[in-house]
Each structure stands twice: as structure tokens, then as C-alpha cells.
């Protein structure tokens, strides 16, 4: 079966004035459909850079990035924007909602950029909000919502275009532990429905929710382990999944 993401010797070097800063030094890994994995590492390890490249916000300096068997490295800005729109769903630590727009409008945003007609757009956005339990808050603005609710809107927005992968950068970083746990439950549900989720975090207990953890150190993959109790093998995919701990 085709892999969703295939990275081969990805290198990223930043030019800061006259100095060259290597952020990634040869990352090779692959991610299959319906995986639920976390990327961890101390600051400076390159995990943000890796996420930017995975999310097609940035292109690697060297190496190949195959997304659904398509080479991302050589694509122009417009093509990258299209991929971000259709294939990637971002969830940020600081939610990143448009402050002056309603929840519904925020969720509609990706659909506006791929030209979806208004009626369809509104319908899909409502359904996405329903799936995160916020159908009744559709016309509230972010400043009328709690942190947890805002993140849920962001998740609905990430899902609305039915992307191939959800990229979440410290999604619970700005939330208290109870709300954070609620969010992780939602991610679990999303994963069960067949989505692929990549979580970037530095919290061990958040990473515990995921099946696989890739640890970066100084721009390289230090470890890449599957959690035994969460491993999704070919046999296990037929059985009902073990309940989340």
C-alpha cells in the first residue's frame, strides 16, 4: 500500500545573515495512512521545522518529500497552497482563529479558498462544528468562547476539507489539563474515523496518547518507537481498538 508521507534525507538550512543554521540534518522516515504519531524533542531539535515541511509551509533544502507519492520539493507557492488547502489540516497551540469572524465563518475559511459555493460551504462547516460538539456556538466569535471551545473550532476547521493528515502543534499547550484531556479525546475519535494525525509536543503524557513517537535531537531522528499497547498492526485493524487509557 502507498505510504502517505515518505521523507528521504530531508535537510533544511536557514540563512541568518551570513551564518548558515542547519535546522534539519537528514531526516528519513515514512508515515502510513491512519497513523497517530507524535514528534517530540527539546527546543532547537528541529521539530517545528519538520512540522513546517510536513505541512508544506516550507520546502526542504535537500532531500525528497513524497506526499501520496508526489514530490513536494519542487512545487511552486501556488501548488503548495493548494496542497495545504486540500490535504493538510492545521491545529495550532494558539488556536489562530480570525478574531472578528464567527465560529462558522472560521470553519468555512478553507472552503472559501477552494471555491466551494456558499450553501455547500455552510453545510460542511455546520457538520464539522457538530462533530466537535459546537453546533450551538456557530455564530459566536472567538472572544465569546473558552479556550477549549476555540481549539475545537480550530479542529473543526482542520477537518472541514477532509484532509489526508491533521498536523497539530502543541494543541493543548494553552489549555488546562482537564480541557486538554477533552481535546485529546477528540483527537482519538478523529483517529478512529480513519484520519492520520501528527502531533508535535514536548509533553510526555500527551505523547502517551499516540501510537508512535519520533524523537528529534539536533536536527536528526534520535528514536522512532511504536508504543506496544497502541500499535496498529494489520491483524489489530480488524479488531475493535483497545479503549483509551
Amino acid at each position, binding site marked *: 500500500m502507498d505510504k502517505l508521507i515518505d521523507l528521504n534525507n530531508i535537510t533544511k538550512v536557514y540563512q541568518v545573515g551570513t551564518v548558515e543554521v542547519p535546522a534539519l540534518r537528514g531526516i528519513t522516515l515514512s508515515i502510513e495512512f491512519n497513523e497517530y504519531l507524535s514528534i517530540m524533542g527539546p527546543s532547537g531539535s528541529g521539530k517545528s521545522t519538520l512540522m513546517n515541511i510536513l505541512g508544506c509551509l516550507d520546502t526542504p533544502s535537500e532531500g525528497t518529500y513524497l506526499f501520496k507519492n508526489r514530490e513536494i520539493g519542487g512545487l511552486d507557492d*501556488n501548488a503548495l*497552497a*493548494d496542497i495545504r488547502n486540500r490535504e493538510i489540516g492545521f491545529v495550532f497551540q494558539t488556536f489562530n482563529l480570525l478574531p472578528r469572524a464567527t465560529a462558522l465563518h472560521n470553519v468555512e475559511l478553507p472552503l*472559501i*479558498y477552494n471555491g466551494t*459555493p456558499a450553501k455547500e460551504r455552510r453545510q460542511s462547516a455546520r457538520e464539522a462544528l457538530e462533530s466537535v460538539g459546537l453546533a450551538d456556538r456557530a455564530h459566536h466569535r472567538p472572544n465569546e468562547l473558552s479556550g477549549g471551545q476555540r481549539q475545537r473550532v480550530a479542529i473543526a*476547521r482542520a477537518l472541514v476539507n477532509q484532509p489526508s493528515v491533521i498536523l497539530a502543534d502543541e494543541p493543548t499547550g494553552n489549555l488546562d489539563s482537564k480541557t486538554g484531556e477533552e481535546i485529546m479525546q477528540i483527537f482519538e475519535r478523529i483517529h478512529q474515523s480513519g484520519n492520520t494525525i501528527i502531533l508535535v509536543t514536548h509533553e510526555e503524557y500527551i505523547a502517551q496518547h499516540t501510537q508512535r513517537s519520533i524523537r528529534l535531537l539536533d536536527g536528526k531522528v534520535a528514536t522512532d518507537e511504536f508504543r506496544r499497547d497502541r500499535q496498529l498492526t494489520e491483524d489489530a485493524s480488524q479488531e475493535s481498538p483497545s479503549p483509551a487509557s
Partner: protein
Amino acid sequence: MNPREIIESVRIAMGALRTHKVRAALTTLGILIGVTTVIGLVSLVQGLNQSFTGQVASLGSNVLYVEKFPWFAGEDWYKYRNRKNITRQQAGRLDGMLTTAAAVAPVTYTRRMIKFGDARAEAILIRGTTAEYQDVADVSAAQGRFFSSVDNHRHNQVCILGQAVVEAVFKDVDPLYQRVFIGPFRFLVVGIKEKKGNLLGFNQDEDVIIPIRTFEKLYGSYRSLDIMVEASDPQALEETKEEVRWAMRIIRRNLPGEPDDFSINQQDMLTDMYQKVTGTIYLVMIGIGTVSLLVGGIGIMNIMLVSVTERTREIGIRKALGARRRNILWQFLVEAVTLSCVGGLIGILIGFGLGKLVAAVSPLPASVSLWSVVLGLGFSSAVGIFFGLYPAAKAARLNPIEALHYE
């Protein structure tokens, strides 16, 4: 760029305006003033145009005025001082020579006092002319009759009074067949001229018309006459003009190669002069308008730059969600154009309002016209596009990763 996105952008723009009302108001002030000025002045000038054209029309678009001086001699008047007078005999010969004229009438003027009983009217315009004056000047007797060519031949002392003269001197008495004194001379009133009203501020009913032979007998024939010629075919006025010129040159013995020693004036000279004057007004207006629009445009560029900086994060979010450069560019461009058009629209409304106000409290007329609205909106949009382009391009070029991290 699909229409959906344009509508979306306009919605966002209006939302941004509503959120920062004061800022938006100050920004559009420049455009507003520019458009108001232009629209206000345009409606005034348009009104003047209509009024002027209407009045000038009564001069007759098919009438030529053969005179010693051209109407707009201006600084060159001294050139014409030495020209010989135009005489009644020349007018008679002209009448005989022309084939494309419907009527020819010599006219001369002076001012005298009119007396009836105890009533007096001073310095009334006395016109001496022939019976054909009725045709060339489109004048008729509302009561009684005009004098005839017989009256003229016999240099009878008969007169036709204008309405204003009647009102000044006759009060309740019926003026017809009364005798009045024009200067020391007694005249019989045979007719009252129909009311004509004002022509460019000049009251056309304050005159008295007498036969020209009578005029010359009583007041002398040293004045130069004007000869009014009515063309048979109004469409062929230029041909009649050429015929008149040819005839007058013969009559006055202008040698070939010499310029005319007379002038042929016509109504559209007035129109031309008027248009020259209003042309200047238009130029001044355009100058003021352009400067204001420039100022307004710079204001818009400024505000858009601030807006882009404030919304750096937002731009990053949009790009992360799939907005292309083109989308961001359009979004901010539409915002700039919306801003400037709102200013332009308000300016148009105020401009018209001011024009109407001036028209209501002063004798100046004002009129609304569609093309000035189109012009106002057009210029506003152009300013919006031109000055909004740089900030919009800046926004489009933002790096999404950096933008997302902007504080």
C-alpha cells in the same frame, strides 16, 4: 478570482470599516473632499450651462450680425477703430444681393428719455430698424401692430413699446394710439412688443422701436449700423455667412488679399466664449480634485499598510489554510477600493447636496448628471487600486511561517 471571493472580500472590507469607523473616516476624508469639490462644481457648471444655452438660443441660431466690431474684440479693439461705418445704403444693397437670406434688417441704437404726461423713464434704449426686424429678431406686437415699410419710407414718427417701458410710464392707461415724447419729439404708439424676458441678465423689454429713417432724421446718421441677416436654411448658416462676406466685401470695396473691414458675429461665438470660460473653471476644478484625490490616496496607502501589519497573523493563518498570494492580494486590494469608493460615494452625495443648496439660496442654477457620478466613482476606484496595490502586494508576499509567529 471568482465572484464569491470578491463578495467575501467586500464583506471583510465593510467589516473592517465598521470596526475602525473613526480611522476609516479620517482615511477617506481626502477622497471625500476631492470628489465633493468636483461634483459640487460640476453640478453648478452644468446648471449654468443649461441656463446659458437656453438663453442664448433666443438669439437665434440662424442669425448673423454684420457689425463694425467683432463681439469679443478684447485687447485688439483698437485695430477696428479705424473701420468705416456701416450705413443704411450698404444694408439696402446687401439685401438686394443676398439669395440665401430670409430677411435682412439694419439696426441702430441710442438712449433717450420717454415722457407721457407726468411720467418719465430715463435712458431708454431706442432701436431704429426696418419692418423686417420682426423676422430677424423674432419679435412681434402683442397689441396693435409693428410699423410697416411705408412708415419707414415716410419716416413716420411711430413707435413700438416694450412691456417694461409701458409699465414704467403708462400705469393704468391703455398705451395704444397714445402719444409719447421720445426726447423732444412726439411719437404715436402703434404697438406693444410681446414680453421677452431676460437675456443673460439684460432685460429685453426695456426698449422702444422706431423706423430707422425716422431715427436717422431725428438723431443723425453718424452711427455705424448693425445689419442682422436671417438665413433661409438654419442648417446652411455657414453658406449664408460666406455669401454675406462676399457681398459686403464688394459693397465696401475690400480688395482681394485685404482682410474684411467688417465683422460677422453669430450666436455660437457667445457659446464658444462661454465654453472657454467654463473650460478654465473645469481645469481649476480638476486641479483641486486631483490634488485632493492624491492626498486621499496616500492616506489610503498609509492606512492599508498599518492594516496589513496589524493583520500579519491573520494573513499567515489564511495562507496556512490554502490562500494563494493572489487571494491575499485581491483581499486587500478590494478593501482599499471599498474604502475609497465609500469615500467617493459620500463625496458625491455631499457634492450634490451642496450644489442643490447653492442653487436654492442663490441665482446660480445646479443640475445633477450621471456622468459626473460615474466619474467620481471611477476616480475613487482608480485611486483605491493605485494606492492600495503596494500594501496589498506586501501582504501577499508575507512568508506564512513568519507571519504566524508575528506578535
